[in-house]
């Protein structure tokens, strides 16, 4: 199995970090498996973890009263699931469910925040990289809001 260090070197969110930084981050990670349909976390619960998808697909969902769960976005291998561990109040904003059998690496948010507090350079790098993830998700979401495939007329 690929080591967590090796995985981190390949994924966009951590690409370019120094080996010592990757080692620090990897020290907070462990490999996990979820069966298809398993819930990774639920909206409102404490957000003390994030996942890096290795194989499979994760659905972010929210529960709409009278409609049931509504799927908002899906996340694929190489993508991060969860940023709420980095920002107060450290609560999940959505549910996350494994759409397929899922292999991921789980990172302990409290462990990483502690290392970031002790090493501001690592903290800055982590913050800027997760900000990049947020920006990309925001841009993709904005494009979907445009309803580009709607009617234009003859």
């Amino acid at each position: 199995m690929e080591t967590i260090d090796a995985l981190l070197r390949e994924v966009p969110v951590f690409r370019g970090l120094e080996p010592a930084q990757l080692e620090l981050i990897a020290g907070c990670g462990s490999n996990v498996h979820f069966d298809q349909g398993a819930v990774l976390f639920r909206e409102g619960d404490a957000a003390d973890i994030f996942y890096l998808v290795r194989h499979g697909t994760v659905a972010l969902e929210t529960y709409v009263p009278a409609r049931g769960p509504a799927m908002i976005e899906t996340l694929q291998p190489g993508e991060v699931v969860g940023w709420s561990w980095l920002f107060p109040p450290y609560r999940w904003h959505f549910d996350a469910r494994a759409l397929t059998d899922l292999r991921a690496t789980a990172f302990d948010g409290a462990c990483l925040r502690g290392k970031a507090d002790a090493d501001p350079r690592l903290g800055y790098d982590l913050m800027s990289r997760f900000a990049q993830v947020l920006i990309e998700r925001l841009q993709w979401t904005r494009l979907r809001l445009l309803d580009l495939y709607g009617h234009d007329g003859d």
Partner: protein
Amino acid sequence: MATTATETHAAMAPRPFRVARRERETADTWTLELEPVQGDPLQVAPGQFTMLYAFGVGEVPISVSGEPGGPLVHTVRAVGAVTEAICAAGEETILGVRGPMGNAWPLGTGGDVVVVAGGIGLAPLRGVVYDLVRRRDAFGEAALLYGGRTPADLLYRDELERWREPLQVDVTVDAAEPGWEGKVGFVAKLVGSARFDPAAATAFVCGPEIMMRTSAEALLERGVPAERIFVSMERNMQCGVGLCGHCQLGPTLICRDGPVYRWDEVERLMAVREL
């Protein structure tokens, strides 16, 4: 190349075609197979379009969506008076056809191929997919990345399932419906996880312009050279033969020089708001 008055007249006169078969794709989209009332069938290539005439209503440019070398097939979405009339045309209805017009997708002879389609943009690329499936051994990796508005708006659903065996087929929707267990997200995002060698890949992209731009940017980021990314442009095409100028995009007339362009030919033009 000079065009004679006789040639121009012939190009402007629609030929009568009969609706031989029709199939509903979605709530507002139909696929029609057309056969000529008289004379030889049209020889069309994926990427080309015809001017399709609903007599007494009007004429619109519609891309061909059939098999290369096969009958004339169009997939039409009812979005206005003309396309509503075409979609409502039952079997045996006579429609007018001018064309085929425009250039074709440069179907490859090898390497990896990435097809990125958004919404009704899968229709002009369907012939490319047919060609990939038919000549599968001639290519390396072959990926079809398709994004729709909702699951109910996805075209060719049976074929998408069949294409999963010979091709990488990755489908996503902008908005899920209850029961959807597929992907949700913008189609250009799929480029990042598709299997292909950027240095050996050719990409074909069709959909709304913003979707084509973001897809091209994602392909460029993966390392696909701009000269091997092809897009299909759409403007207000009316005469279809480069006379009226309605489809002008800077120095080019899309009906005559396009609709298929290399990305490096149109990237700058697409950024000009006045065009």
